């Protein structure tokens, strides 16, 4: 039989092994990005002789990194803002107001959770191309206007908000729009933050939609640009590809480090 002490030690040992398995690939990515092509050819798994930033210089020369970064950020921010703007009134109606067919409207929304972008892209692509929106920022943003996950999250939070708060505001002559966009956001701040972070990170990282929706440089996002690093050029390029991967993963990892608690709050909530 295993006692308490050895059980604790076993758990700790397992945690250490897991940390190593999950951190090693990042270390490998960083190390590779600091090598020279000669080192990669001769001894691909040895430590680099000197730390060189040549690969990063090469990435910045091959790709308009600043432009990609700006565009990706603008896209992800636009999606998150649009999603929140639509989610607030919807969550308010679904969480606080009594009306006929509320259950049906909610069921319709929940069934949208079933339909991922990967399933919608064929007709959406032809629809957007007939509107001339392929290869434009709206083409990257509009298809994600509704986040069923976000509306669900806000609605759950609203259920805990006392109705008296809203009734008092109505008595003071507040319009419904004022209630939705001014009164509720501060009350819902933790859920809104979680919603924003989950949405921002997800779309900032997205590869699939920008891949099918862009045809040239004009609205290419950073993940797409970095993926292209592997297809360009010839010879040993792993140091360059890894430098690109590092540049791509750093902002997401930094955001995660800064907002871990709020982000986990959003993802930990069981959305049906």
């Amino acid at each position: 039989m295993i006692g308490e002490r050895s059980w604790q030690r076993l758990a700790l040992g397992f945690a250490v092994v897991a940390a190593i398995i999950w951190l090693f690939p990042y270390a490998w990515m960083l190390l590779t990005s600091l090598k020279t092509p000669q080192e990669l050819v001769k001894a691909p798994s040895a430590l680099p002789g000197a730390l060189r930033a040549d690969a990063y210089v090469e990435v910045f020369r091959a790709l308009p990194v600043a432009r990609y970064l700006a565009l990706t950020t603008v896209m992800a921010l636009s999606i998150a803002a649009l999603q929140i703007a639509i989610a607030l009134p919807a969550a308010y109606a679904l969480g606080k107001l009594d009306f006929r067919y509320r259950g049906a409207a909610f069921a319709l929304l929940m069934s949208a959770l079933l339909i991922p972008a990967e399933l919608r892209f064929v007709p959406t692509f032809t629809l957007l191309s007939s509107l001339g929106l392929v290869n434009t920022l709206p083409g990257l943003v509009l298809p994600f206007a509704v986040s069923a996950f976000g509306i669900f999250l806000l609605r759950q939070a609203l259920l805990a908000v006392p109705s008296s708060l809203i009734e008092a505001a109505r008595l003071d002559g507040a319009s419904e729009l004022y209630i939705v966009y001014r009164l509720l956001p501060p009350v819902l701040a933790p859920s809104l933050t979680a919603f924003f972070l989950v949405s921002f990170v997800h779309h900032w990282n997205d590869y699939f939609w920008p891949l099918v929706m862009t045809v040239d440089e004009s609205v290419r996002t950073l993940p797409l640009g970095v993926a292209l690093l592997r297809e360009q050029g010839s010879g040993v390029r792993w140091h360059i590809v890894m430098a690109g991967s590092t540049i791509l993963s750093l902002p997401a990892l930094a955001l995660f480090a800064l907002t871990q608690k709020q982000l986990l709050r959003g993802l930990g909530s069981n959305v049906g």
Partner: protein
Amino acid sequence: MKPSRPAQPWWLLSPMLLALGIFFLYPLLSAFKTSFYEWDLLTPPRFVGLANYRAILASGELLSSLGTTLLVSVVVVTGSLVLGLALALAVHRPGRVAALARSAVFSAYVVSWVSVGLLFLWIFDADAGVVNRALAWLGMPGAKWLTSTTLAPLTVALIVIWKVTGYAMVVFLSGLSALPPEVSEAAALDGAGPVSRLRHVTLPLLRPTAAFVATTSLIASFQLFDVVRLLTQGGPVRSTTVLVYAIYEQLFRDLRVGRASALVVIFFVVLALLSWLKLRAFRAEEPA
């Protein structure tokens, strides 16, 4: 609460309903309709009845991509469920090591598939990759991780497990936090050791959480695309062509919109079945 005016809820819902109509309902209905047409995006669509569905069935591509998707999904779901639970149990405690392990494992979930895909392409490279080099150093033969038809789907699944286990762990952690500590404490007072407390108290109480994790990751695994596109492009010899990748190929490589749409319709039916399974898993857990 009563709405201030009867039509008010519908005004508030209208942006959501409009977007749902354009970007969810329309695409589905349109895919259904297009699945009966032959269309290459260039010339006008031509009605062909059930020909697309027949062609898909006859070519065996549906069965093979469904089989691949199922294989990868089963490995991913089992792996991330077991590993996520074990990790949650190990790091559900105060202390720096546990906190570091929590953050490290979950961080993979936050990083772009592009970074993760390229990184593992390099790590599993047959010649210069660190895995095969390490095996050689140990005197063992290397493996064709991504270039053998038998190994490639498993390597892809392994990489997906690395990426998504953090999510399973987080859900299990919130499940563990929600358990009443008294139950476990009472069992300890009764002389139950850690292993028997885990088996007879903690694990049974975590069953609803496990059902949630399993069904959620099953549905997510069926939607895999990025990892395949980045690592193997469906190969070698279609051994990693999962459903979504098959749809993507039909549309962008072969310009067969009708056939891609027919695959979308079939894919939707599969997803609906899985979600029904998910609902059932929850109903079964509810107390009668």
